[in-house]
């Protein structure tokens, strides 16, 4: 097909017919009889649980499957008329861009400008054309200020934008993204999604985006394709998808959809704006609670009208803590006189944008970085699980990682006592995370009593909702056993599910600290979808929102009732 025909959109951006694929030495097929078509300029969302085949489908569309990974493939995949099974990823790079989950391994050059220019250079574009294309894509993605920087000085969000720029610089017809927001804070994640939407509208590039946090991107999508067990289980508009998911797989629905579903309102909203419009159209106004919800969480470090004072039985006590780290060859204060206290048995979500100091606080508490001033104490011990649980797993048998009675006690705490003889690599992602936590806990359990503080740093990256629910149970159980639990997270919905208290960090200091319902309903970025829809103090979960709508909402002359029987 000619270049001109491709540019005019004669061929679909992606056409998949009867695609089946199995990785080498795999027991079962990763894809089975997948057929779908993405039209030029379409924004399609790929939904589904973990291991449903989303990533494999994206890899097949960019030629990595089977050219790079091997395995057996059948069926047909064409990108803008180019046969992806015949052509290699390099040939396909002219028509398709691919952005994966981990930005670290998606850059291959030292400087940003060279990284973006590389695909053009390798396909033989002339230097002036390359220079112009780099400039234009940098402007489109608002990163011209990064061009002269080295990639190892960029934040996760900046690195993800650079990877996107390198994928877009060839002006592809289709861009594929595999959970690109999983490592970003809510601000950077939202910015990336709407940037994609803008590029989709202005450049006409088709987008196929795989994502777990659908509430973040459903409103931007034209269409949703759901996958289950390697096959397409649904294909339709976002509104139709929500109706389908409510019946077929409720774990795939968004919080706003669950809110409407529980309240018996239809149609289910694809985003905050749609939800508000529905409520306004039907003149439904959830009544605000008569008074702000009472603060049920003890605030050990914040007495009313008093200065900060650490509690008597604190699991964590930080008084005027300063931590200095090096950034861009310059010393930089990451924590700036931070005060915080966490009591035993508390469930605390530590939130804030990337670089706010969340991980640094946990690392300082664990002794991995030194404080330069102030007092930071964990009087009854700390077990910290860092962002990548696989880092803890160095042996080939669970029992070898955790020998003896102390090891078995730790395995019992996380519910993995049955897996003593298993190879950690054979465990599921959630089980590996539990094993890593058991390794951090081992020997710190005194007669069934956990260490004073258990901390988890970004534990929900790349998790689907079912696994997050399991993690909520685990965290709640740990707190129930007396440990103070602090989880650093960007995931507001997860924070609303497990935390009784939210501490919001900004630029190294605590900028908000209070009950989760209060903090997560009082902002925009660090607020749940339900809170953004209803804008009521203290209402953050679909259940709370539905109660407010069902029990106490006021109708003002609604003529067309949206209410329906809940499923």
């Amino acid at each position, binding site marked *: 097909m000619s270049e001109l025909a491709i540019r005019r959109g004669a061929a679909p951006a992606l056409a998949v017919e009867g695609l089946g694929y199995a990785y080498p030495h795999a027991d079962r097929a990763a894809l089975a009889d997948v057929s779908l078509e993405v039209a030029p300029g379409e924004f399609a969302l790929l939904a589904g649980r973990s291991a449903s085949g989303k990533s494999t489908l994206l890899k097949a569309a960019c030629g990595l499957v089977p050219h790079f990974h091997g395995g057996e493939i059948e069926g047909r995949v064409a990108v803008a008329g180019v046969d992806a099974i015949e052509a*290699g990823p390099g040939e396909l790079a002219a028509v398709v861009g691919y952005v994966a989950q981990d930005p670290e391994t998606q850059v291959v050059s030292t400087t940003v400008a060279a990284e973006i220019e590389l695909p053009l250079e390798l396909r033989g574009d002339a230097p002036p054309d390359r220079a112009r294309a780099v400039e234009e894509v940098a402007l489109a993605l608002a990163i011209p200020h990064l061009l002269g920087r080295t990639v190892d000085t960029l934040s996760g969000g900046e690195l993800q934008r650079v990877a996107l720029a390198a994928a877009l610089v060839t002006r592809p017809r289709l861009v594929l993204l595999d959970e690109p927001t999983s490592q970003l804070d809510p601000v950077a994640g939202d910015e990336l999604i709407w940037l994609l939407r803008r590029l989709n509208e202005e450049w006409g590039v088709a987008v196929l985006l795989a994502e777990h946090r659908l509430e973040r991107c459903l409103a931007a999508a034209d269409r949703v394709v759901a996958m289950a067990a390697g096959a397409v289980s649904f294909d339709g508009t976002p509104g139709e998808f929500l109706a389908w998911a409510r019946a077929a797989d409720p774990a795939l629905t968004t919080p706003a959809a669950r809110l409407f579903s529980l309240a018996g309102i239809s149609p289910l909203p694809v985003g905050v704006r749609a939800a508000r419009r529905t409520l306004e159209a039907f003149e439904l106004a959830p009544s605000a609670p008569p008074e702000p919800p009472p603060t049920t969480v003890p605030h050990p470090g914040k007495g009313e009208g008093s200065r900060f004072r650490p509690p008597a039985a604190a699991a964590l006590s930080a008084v005027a803590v300063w931590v200095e780290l090096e950034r861009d060859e310059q010393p930089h204060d990451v924590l700036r006189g931070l005060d915080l206290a966490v009591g035993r048995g508390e469930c605390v979500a530590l939130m804030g944008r990337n670089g706010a100091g969340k991980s640094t606080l946990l690392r300082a508490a664990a002794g991995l970085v030194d404080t330069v001033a102030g007092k930071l104490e964990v009087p009854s011990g700390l077990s910290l699980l860092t962002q990548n649980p696989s880092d803890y797993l*160095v042996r080939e048998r669970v029992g*070898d990682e955790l020998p003896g009675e102390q090891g078995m006690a730790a395995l019992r705490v996380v519910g993995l006592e049955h897996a003593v003889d298993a190879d950690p690599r054979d465990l599921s992602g959630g089980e590996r995370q539990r094993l890593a936590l058991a390794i951090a806990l*081992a020997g710190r359990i005194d007669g069934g009593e956990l260490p004073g503080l258990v901390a988890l740093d970004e534990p929900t990256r790349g998790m689907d909702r079912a696994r997050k629910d399991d993690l909520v149970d685990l965290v709640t159980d740990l707190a129930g056993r007396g440990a103070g639990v602090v989880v650093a997270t960007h995931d507001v919905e997860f924070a609303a599910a497990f935390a009784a208290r939210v501490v919001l960090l900004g630029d190294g200091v605590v900028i908000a600290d209070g009950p989760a319902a209060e903090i997560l309903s009082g902002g925009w970025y660090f607020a749940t979808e339900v809170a953004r829809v209803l804008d009521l103090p203290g209402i953050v979960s679909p259940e709370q929102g539905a109660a407010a709508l069902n029990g106490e909402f006021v109708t003002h002359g609604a003529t067309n009732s949206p209410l329906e029987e809940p499923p």
Partner: protein
Amino acid sequence: MRSALAYTPRPGALQSASPGAAVAYLGSFVVVSFLFTNPLVLAAAGAGLVLAGLIAGAGGALRVALWMGVGLALPIAAINALLVDRGETVLVRLGHWPLFGQVDITLEAIVYGAVMALLVAVTIVAAAIYSSCVNPDRVLRSLRPLAGRSALTATLVSRLFPVAAADAARLRDAARLRGPGAAEVGIAPLSRRLLAGSLDRAVDVAATLELRGYGLDPRRLRRRRETSRFDRRFYCVAALVLAAGIAARVLGGNGFHTYPTVELTLGPETVALAVLLVLSGLAPLRRRPRRVRRRSSSALAPALEAPHV
């Protein structure tokens, strides 16, 4: 944490120069150092390089290089003193050692070891300035049309090195965070884990390279002539240093022998070469932009400059 040896973009003349010019300039110091054993020439080459590194803003890289140089120099000097018993000035007789035989520490062996250590230090300093100031992307871009596979390997390695370093730091942290009841992690399991992780990382990076089009026909590559207004300066200084070094060597300007006794002669050609080497370290100097004083001829100027009330 970022290594001080990693390339850092700065607006210096050395950073702006093409890789060829920078390599020629830094390489000329190293070549002259290998032509001479005269400590004055070696010290001058080292001083010139340190000056060049400081002007180029590579102070951090110089610090690391000097530490590495000292770390290597001391063992070299010590081992040479222990193994070589040439030289007439015996400082200490250590008697008969198993495997070594009679061990005598001579002044000449110590001096020779120190000179070799100085040569190693000069080479390390030059390499550190190169690493900190020369953009590896430009080097690889120059290399790609000439040796595609080597460039691919170099690209993979240059990316994997910082990724593996970050992985190693994370694994060390995780090892420190293990509970006292978990199995201890020694160097061997940690290294195995790092190696396995690096292989996974290599696969990911290789996939990215594939997606960028590395598998395409290398004949497509169109070279960009990357020159800088500083190139001529660096090439000229490199040529001058090399020519002066060779001339001084031909004229017998080394003037240094260690065995059987230390003899140091400082002829005019040796001194001139040393001065030239130190002065060559000024080559990365970049003239500061001249501030233009605005002198307004407008009669309204004083009024315009007056503060608004």
